[in-house]
């Protein structure tokens, strides 16, 4: 693959993060797409989608969470126990899946963070579920206000939604370049950007996004790719994993995963009832297989993405030990098979490992597609 030398997608995350802290911003960690970052953006708060990028093994976390929970939760626990997440001044969880619930339990037991809250996210998206979720979000807001002594009310949230939507609109414009025959950036670059967006304050992210947006039209597209692929998974916040795939010629043009953009960058409705809107938005747009009544929508979204992004093949990469993605993958495979869409199932761990094997599998997949 040809390398770009303009450093457009290279940011010093550490510096930007440090600058935010020095400005007096309060990073609050969250681990699931059912925690709304807009609520964690109020006043001085800033939402930090927790990752364990540099975790070195999970030996201690394995003792508590066991080796049969997903490596994302184990890595986060290990990273937190290794004091690497001490900068977080609070944690917000969603009862999204078995593993995240138990991460919450273990974190509470082992580290006793000053602020640690879990939202009871329903598994349905109907009106009762939205009402339930709205109450949960209001309760979170109240607790954030009390703990951090800040005033979060309907109008602050409504304003934050507007700021957040502006960022998402800009991101969407960048993301849409991937629908072109030759996008001006790689999937790896796009995911460096996405990781920054999910871990930096909205204003900082907006500046990064604006800078990229301005220069994209003049950027020459990367060359040497043989196929356009869609990656389906849960949490991928290490762009090196995408890079591994791209190194053998598969351009990642679409990302249906929690830390990606499909879904993830949809705009929140801007109305007078933001709590209800956030609740409804998250339950209806998040495409997680934890939801019991959105299977058809999830499949439809994948098929639409394949069409819109001119995808040649799909890589489904569930994380080992994730039951909801494990079972969902089987059904996705059946659906894709019926439609004669080439796919590859790649079970993976959270961290990047076994690059050689990963590349061999992807290479074989591309050859199978005759691309």
């Amino acid at each position, binding site marked *: 693959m040809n390398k770009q030398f303009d450093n457009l997608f290279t940011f010093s995350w550490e510096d930007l993060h440090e600058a935010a802290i020095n400005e007096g911003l309060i990073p609050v960690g969250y681990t699931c797409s059912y925690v709304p970052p807009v609520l964690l953006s109020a006043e001085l708060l800033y939402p930090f989608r927790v990752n364990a990028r540099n975790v070195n093994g999970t030996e201690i976390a394995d003792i508590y969470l*066991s080796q049969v929970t997903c490596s994302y939760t184990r890595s986060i626990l290990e990273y937190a126990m290794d004091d690497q997440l001490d900068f977080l001044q609070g944690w917000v969880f969603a009862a999204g899946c078995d593993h995240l619930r138990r991460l919450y339990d273990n974190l509470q037991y082992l580290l006793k963070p000053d602020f640690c809250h*879990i939202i009871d996210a329903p598994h349905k998206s109907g009106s009762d579920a939205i009402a*339930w979720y709205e109450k949960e979000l209001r309760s979170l807001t109240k607790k954030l206000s009390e703990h951090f002594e800040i005033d979060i009310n309907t109008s602050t949230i409504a304003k934050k939604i507007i700021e957040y939507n502006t960022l998402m609109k800009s991101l969407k414009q960048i993301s849409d370049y991937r629908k072109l025959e030759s996008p001006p950036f790689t999937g790896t670059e796009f995911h460096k950007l996405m990781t920054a967006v999910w871990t930096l304050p909205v204003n900082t992210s907006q500046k990064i996004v604006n800078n990229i947006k301005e220069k994209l039209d003049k950027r020459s597209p990367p060359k040497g790719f043989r196929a356009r692929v869609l990656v389906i998974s849960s949490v991928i916040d290490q762009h090196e994993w995408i890079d591994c795939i791209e190194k053998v010629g598969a351009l990642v043009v679409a990302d249906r995963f929690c830390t990606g953009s499909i879904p993830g960058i949809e705009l929140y409705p801007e109305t007078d009832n933001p709590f209800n809107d956030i609740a409804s938005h998250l339950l209806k747009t998040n495409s997680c297989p934890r939801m019991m009544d959105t299977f058809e929508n999830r499949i439809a979204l994948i098929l639409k993405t394949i069409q819109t992004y001119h995808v040649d093949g799909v890589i489904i990469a569930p994380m080992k030990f994730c039951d909801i993605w494990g079972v969902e993958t089987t059904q996705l495979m059946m659906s894709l098979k019926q439609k004669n869409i080439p796919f590859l199932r790649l079970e993976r761990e959270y961290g990047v490992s076994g690059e050689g094997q990963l590349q061999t599998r992807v290479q074989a997949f591309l050859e199978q597609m005759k691309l």
Partner: protein
Amino acid sequence: MGLLSSFTDEIVYYKTYVKNYKNIIQMPIRHGPIQTYNNLKKYPWLWQLAKVNRLLDIVTRGRSGNYRKASAAVVEKIVPSLMSLLDNININTDRLVLHEDMVPPEIISAMGLTTWMSELLGILLPMVDSHSVEKYIDIAENAGIPSDVCSLPKTTMGIILNSEVPPVNAILSSNSPCDGGMASYQLIKNKLKIPMFQLDVPYNFYNDNAVEYFTNELKKMISWLEEHTPGKMDWDRLREICEERNRMTEYELELWEIIRRRPAPIAAEAVFLSHLWCFNITPGDPSGTALFKYLVELANENVKKEIAAIPNEKYRAVLWNPPFLHFIDLFSWAEQQYGLSVIIDSMSYNRQPFIDTKSEDSMLKGLAHNIMTGPMARHTRGPAENYFNDMFYMYTYFDLDMILIAGHIGCKNTAALNGILREKCRKKGIPLLIIDYDLSDPRVVTHDGIIQQFDRFMENIMKERRL
């Protein structure tokens, strides 16, 4: 005396044995040879179920007197009610509803519908024959289900993928007890191509909002069933069922009071298998109440005569998590080898067991509360404090000597609490044994492997050798 009691014990066994076969043989008589042939062809697991007297062998092995009678009575209760469930696969099949084990069968029965609990075969078959569900696990894994998913939903999916499910017309499930179980129902729905309703059990249920939310879920389920099946809600019938269930509960609570005594007058399957069947599969059935009444009588009689379930009760344990389905023999083995009684288990233990039957709403609220605070929702999905608080409460309440965890490798929820549990037990000085194994698949850890873990624990921690 010894000879006479041996003779009486043999009579207990053979009486139940013959009764069970009489019940089994009536099924082909009721349905005729052609239907029976077709059933056996379509549902090969019927052959395994026909060997249900193996379960009688297991639960009576090494047990005598009233304890033997109690254990045999549980199997004697299971067989006819199993046959009646099996009748549903041939009669009024338009009313047959497939339901997950966390969905209250009380409501389905009150609506004049018949039930087929999806997990029934996954639970019962390995108890009868240890290796009987391996085939279904392999089918599910070959279809792409990851091998690390719990083997109970894998068995259920395997049976359905292999088209061996009775002719059900609607599916009821929930988000419990775990992600694997929940996710499996979408696959089941896609395979069967019939409508499905799923109940959403809240995570935090200690508030009125949660009760209201979940009660509303039950109301929606009733409306949905009225729309998608011939069933109509009969509130009087529901009241009868709930009242019968309450009566059964009263006896069960009485039984628990009796088994708190040291030594326990009855234990193990008589306590947990009776609960598993009567409360989860056939609640509201008067024969369940009769069984619990009988168990209380037997236990009281033993107390009066100062007879212990096992002659040398040395240790008393709580069994946490579902029992070792393919190795139920472990309990009688532990009794004989170490004088260890399993007094109670987590699956039987319910904090809010009664249902208020004064109004339609109170019944639904009672059922809602019952499910939310039931063992699987409460411990497996709910916050960790539910798990530990109940466990340590039971340890004290039942005067136990150790905690025995059936560490099913597919149960990630409970595995993720083992680290905390070890530390808590260490602090409290409670001996803890976590047996690594798979719930339904003996190929993962063999029976010998389970016994070895048990032996090492008894030798190294309890400083005990086999009797």
